[in-house]
């Protein structure tokens, strides 16, 4: 019996572990190792250079630009996306006209809104990026400037992705566009499991609905918000597809939309500096881990059971 059990365990684990080790674990470990070498990626010889790649990063202006853009994305994207998600979810669940009996009510057609809002989430980011590249197109044919002309704003014709001051915000808008629906659905599910008595009691005590949001809804949803924050942060730290497909260059005019992931990609697959690129990747990993650590620490508070 025991013998059979171990044979079964090994038999079931061998293949998944092997695939995972060869294609996921080993490349990660190798990447960290290569970050201390001068490997070009083109030939198989390389030599150990210690911290030279990291040292060179510190003097690399584009690296600092990319890092700055990533940090800005990391700050703005979760804030805006989760904020809108919470707002719309609250409107859907509590913003409705009060009907006979119920103390709080969702708006009419909330299911329909959720279906529509969630839709961008199922699209490939490649589709979204191609779509918006042409929507932002400043010349004839571009949807946004075409819309501005149609409502009589002929003089307001921004270059969008071509404007170094605007390009990164255009990237952010697209990423907010595709992710808000996910959080509306996520937070709605959380809100609908909050017992209705809580709202009843608060409203009886004279609280208005905005107070109930900050005093009841948000604290009880905190765990979900925290998880969502980490999800959105990881998306912000990646941003590869949107930058590579959508922005001019790619990387934006004057590196205005350069991000670490895309810079890593150009370094390794265009410039033949694989060692340098993996050092960039390690920097990205460190930023990711610091971010996750901060969110976990900030979010630590007494868990409310209900």
């Amino acid at each position, binding site marked *: 019996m025991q013998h059979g059990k171990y044979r*079964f365990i090994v038999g079931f684990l061998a293949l998944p572990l092997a695939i995972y080790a060869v294609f996921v674990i080993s490349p990660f470990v190798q*990447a960290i190792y290569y970050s201390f070498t001068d490997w070009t990626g083109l030939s198989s010889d390389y030599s150990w250079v210690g911290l030279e790649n990291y040292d060179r990063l510190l003097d690399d202006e584009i690296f600092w630009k990319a890092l700055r853009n990533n940090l800005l994305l990391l700050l703005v994207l979760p804030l805006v996306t989760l904020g809108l998600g919470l707002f*719309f979810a609250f409107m859907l669940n509590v913003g409705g006209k009060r009907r006979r009996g*119920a103390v709080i009510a969702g708006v009419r057609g909330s299911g329909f809104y959720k279906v529509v809002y969630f839709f961008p989430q199922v699209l490939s980011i490649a589709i979204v990026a191609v779509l918006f*590249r042409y929507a932002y197109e400043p010349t004839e044919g571009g949807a946004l400037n075409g819309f501005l002309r149609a409502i009589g704003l002929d003089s307001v014709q921004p270059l969008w992705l071509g404007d170094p001051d605007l390009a990164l915000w255009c990237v952010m808008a697209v990423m907010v566009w595709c992710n808000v629906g996910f959080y509306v659905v996520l937070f709605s599910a959380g809100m609908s*499991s909050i017992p209705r008595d809580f709202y009843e009691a608060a409203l009886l005590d*004279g609280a*208005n609905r905005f107070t109930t949001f900050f005093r009841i809804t948000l604290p009880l949803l905190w765990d979900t918000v925290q998880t969502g924050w980490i999800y959105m942060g990881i998306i912000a730290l990646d941003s590869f597809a949107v930058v590579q497909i959508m922005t001019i260059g790619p990387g934006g005019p004057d590196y205005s939309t350069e991000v670490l992931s895309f810079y*890593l990609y150009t370094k390794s697959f265009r410039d033949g500096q694989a060692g340098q690129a993996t050092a960039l990747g390690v920097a990205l990993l460190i930023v990711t881990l610091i971010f996750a650590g901060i969110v976990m620490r900030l979010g630590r508070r007494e868990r409310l059971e209900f």
Partner: protein
Amino acid sequence: MTDTQTGAVPEGEPVTTQLVPPELPGIDKRDAPSAPGKRQSGSEGRVLNVFSHAFLVVWGLLVTLPVLWAIMTSLKTDSEILKSPWALPDELKWNNWSRAWQDANMGDYFMNSVIVVGGSLVGTMLLGAMAAYVIARFEFPGNRFIYYLFISGMSFPIILALVPLFFVMDNMGLLNTYHGLILVYIGYSLPFTVFFLTSFFRTLPTSVAEAAILDGASHTRTFFQVMLPMAKPGLISVGIFNFLGQWNQYLLPTVLNTGEGKQVLPQGLVELAATQGYDGDWSGLFAGLVLATLPVLAVYIVFQRQVQAGLTAGALK
């Protein structure tokens, strides 16, 4: 994780009950005590209702208009598109679509995606469920270590592994092959699949499996004939999650699968956008874009509740 299931799957239910209050006789009894509060904030409720509808409609338009614009553009001629991006076409140019499907190879890219995702989805579900089952249900040395090894993969940026992975694949002769891409998709889908299914298997009762073993079934047979059917709700959630993740995958094929004619759909669309964009062939480009959108749109419309539950399942605890 039980909450994930009970909380996420019937997620629309509370809303419907709110919409139809007479179905909730219990609440009517409480109506009297809450009446004073109701009078006070009655106008507040009405204002809020108008206000919330206004915002909700605006966001709804922001989401749908770009998509409608793409569909409309895909049915216009190039000169119509350039003249006025928001004007309706004089006649619907369906041949843009057939042009994109055949001449621009969107049909081939679609088939490539079907082959790759078909293989990787089956592989991910089977291998993920096997690993998760063993981790969840059996005590053995290294159990915790293997579990954390798997879930640590969720927090690493994939792009960091990409450079060495390219050479791993190259050395094994797996670059630009379907089976190479399938293996990589499986590898990168395992962390979440194992994480999700491990906690799901833990919530299932042990008694049924024990009974099967007592009746003489082998562990393997118990797994396939008893446990997998019991785990069906969890498998569906994570299956939808993996299907969309793999079908929409762009980064991995862009680096690992660059062979002529081997491209998967998102990758093919981006290449199409590059070539058609230079030629000024917006109609062909948008037809390709709409064709790439239609399969997921169809799946989403049919299975929207399951899709919403499946994608949010991992974040709800």
